[in-house]
């Protein structure tokens, strides 16, 4: 059975639980809950002062946000390829794909720092107004998760490179992958919400 077939076949029997350690999925659900609440809070805070939010939203670097979205999506894709590789029995290829994913994370962080540098130079802080409080707070909170995701990818990549996973035993890779996808999923809502929706 090739790796491709494993990923795309609509199964006759379903797996009882998602790939990777069940504990990470509890974690993922909790994280999604927190972010979900933050998103809804943002939306309702915005409803309280639409003009303020619309005005300052235009001061955001939308291009940077778009680039970051494309980076994270690509990173997730690389991680999917990594899981496919280890399922095909190739630990080294897996590690390389994970490293590529890590790389997209590095670029994401760099772009984000650029955005922040720009804002801080303009004197913007958490206390400037409600919009910026959410913008800085939410993106920073997400950034922390990107960093966490990168640490996880690096750890898994290192183990994969050293042959720590096999065709049959690679739950660690799937676990790390799931976390990374969560980080991506969150950003897919965050980006349009903060940067685009007016």
């Amino acid at each position, binding site marked *: 059975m090739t790796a491709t077939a494993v990923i795309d076949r609509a199964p006759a029997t379903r797996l009882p639980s998602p790939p990777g350690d069940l504990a990470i999925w509890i974690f993922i659900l*909790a994280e999604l809950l*927190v972010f979900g609440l933050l998103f809804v809070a943002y939306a309702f805070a915005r409803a309280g002062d639409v003009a303020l939010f619309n005005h300052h939203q235009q001061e955001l670097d939308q291009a940077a946000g778009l680039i970051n979205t494309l980076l994270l999506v690509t990173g997730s894709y690389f991680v999917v390829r990594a899981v496919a590789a280890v399922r095909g029995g190739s630990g080294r290829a897996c590690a390389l794909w994970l490293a590529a994913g890590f790389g997209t994370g590095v670029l994401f962080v760099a772009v984000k720092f650029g955005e922040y540098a720009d804002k801080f130079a303009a004197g913007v802080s*958490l*206390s400037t107004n409600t919009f910026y*409080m959410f913008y800085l*707070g939410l993106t920073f909170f997400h950034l922390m998760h990107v960093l966490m995701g990168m640490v996880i990818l690096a750890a898994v990549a290192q183990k994969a490179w050293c042959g720590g996973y096999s065709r049959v035993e690679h739950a660690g890779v799937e676990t790390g992958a799931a976390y990374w996808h969560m980080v991506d999923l969150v950003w897919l809502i965050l980006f349009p919400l903060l940067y685009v929706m007016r």
Partner: protein
Amino acid sequence: MQYKSQAVAKPYFIAAIALFAAQVVFGLILGLQYVIGDFLFPELPFNQARMVHTNLLIVWLLFGFMGAAYYLVPEEAETELHSPKLALALFWIFLIAGALTVLGYVFLRYADLARLTGDALFPTMGREFLEQPTIIKIGIVVVALGFLYNIGMTILKGRKTVVNLVLLIGLVGLAGLFLFSFYNPDNLVLDKYYWWWVVHLWVEGVWELILGAILAFVLIKTTGVDREVIEKWLYVIISLALITGIIGTGHHYYWIGTPEYWQWWGSIFSALEPIPFFAMVIYAFNIVNRRRREHPNKAATLWALGTAVMAFLGAGVWGFLHTLAPVNFYTHGTQITAAHGHMAFYGAYAMIVLTMISYAMPKLRGMGEAASERAQLTEMWSFWLMTVSMVFITLFLTGAGVLQVWLQRYSEAPQAFMAVQEQIKIFYWMRETAGLVFFTGLVLYVISHFVGGPTGAKAKARA
């Protein structure tokens, strides 16, 4: 008892219960002073009795945690405690220091206590729950360091289990965060900001790790369920606790002069703080449900399940009721706070210590796996008396708080504090009555340890 050195836990547990009883006595005095303001004035005014009540709570819980650690760490690490002698020495130091502190609170004017203990050299006194003289605080740090050294060395030379490590991290966190009690900024906003680094990050942070670890240990021992299953749940629970609780500290930063963004971040994260407690309820009942053995210590199992439920209700639900900033704006510092505080502390921390004592005492006393059925029955009665009366204390204080908020803050024509207190007196009388029932339960609890009946082999045979 698998390791001889586990025996050092016994004096810690006995001290814990004795101090618990003293705490409740002072609680009854305070409860009466709410309605008869001059009761015991001027010998023991409200503010002095309160210091004793709250400080005793913390000290007896600390004795309980230390006893729990001394009991479970050698068993988890599968090796004798590093130094039983040190453990006993620290016991006496802590007990005497604690006794001196309480005597100081009761028999001296606070300002005189401060002068006598040289507070002016390094002022740390005068803050709620941290009223101890600076030299006593230093003593607490010394005791804590000695304790951590002892436990740490034991774990280092033995088996490192998840339970052990989570407990150790919790205890190290407890000690480390206590150091913030030495940081006493002049700026009142900063003073309060850092005060919560001790209080919140203790009870809504590292203490939850201690709670989780002890609960896991007792469940492993009494249910026989796979250690790995229980340890995985423990990881999930403490992760949820830390994720929600750390930024959740912000729910104490709404009105003290810190930036407004805390009203958002504190509300959102603290709203989620009940989740780990809810998970603990599911976990505890689930584990007990799929137990592989019928452990003779039924009382311990009751305490364990009760802890999970009461912690969820007191800390989780009652905490949630007043955690959102728009609600807290009205309820801050009212009897709602007192309602939550009592059920939370009892449900989470008093009960987990009592759970551990319930499990360990029969073994420490050489009675076997469990006390006699009659003793257990008495103990279970005491569980119900204390727990149900605490629920009533909480309900009455909630009633008092709701009326207080309505009359004093929310209504069109808010009334003054004392005028409102007059009108909520009925709730205080009811609370005091419930408090007396609680005390009765506690007395029964002590008695249960002296109730005889067939133990050991006969108890095992019946199980």
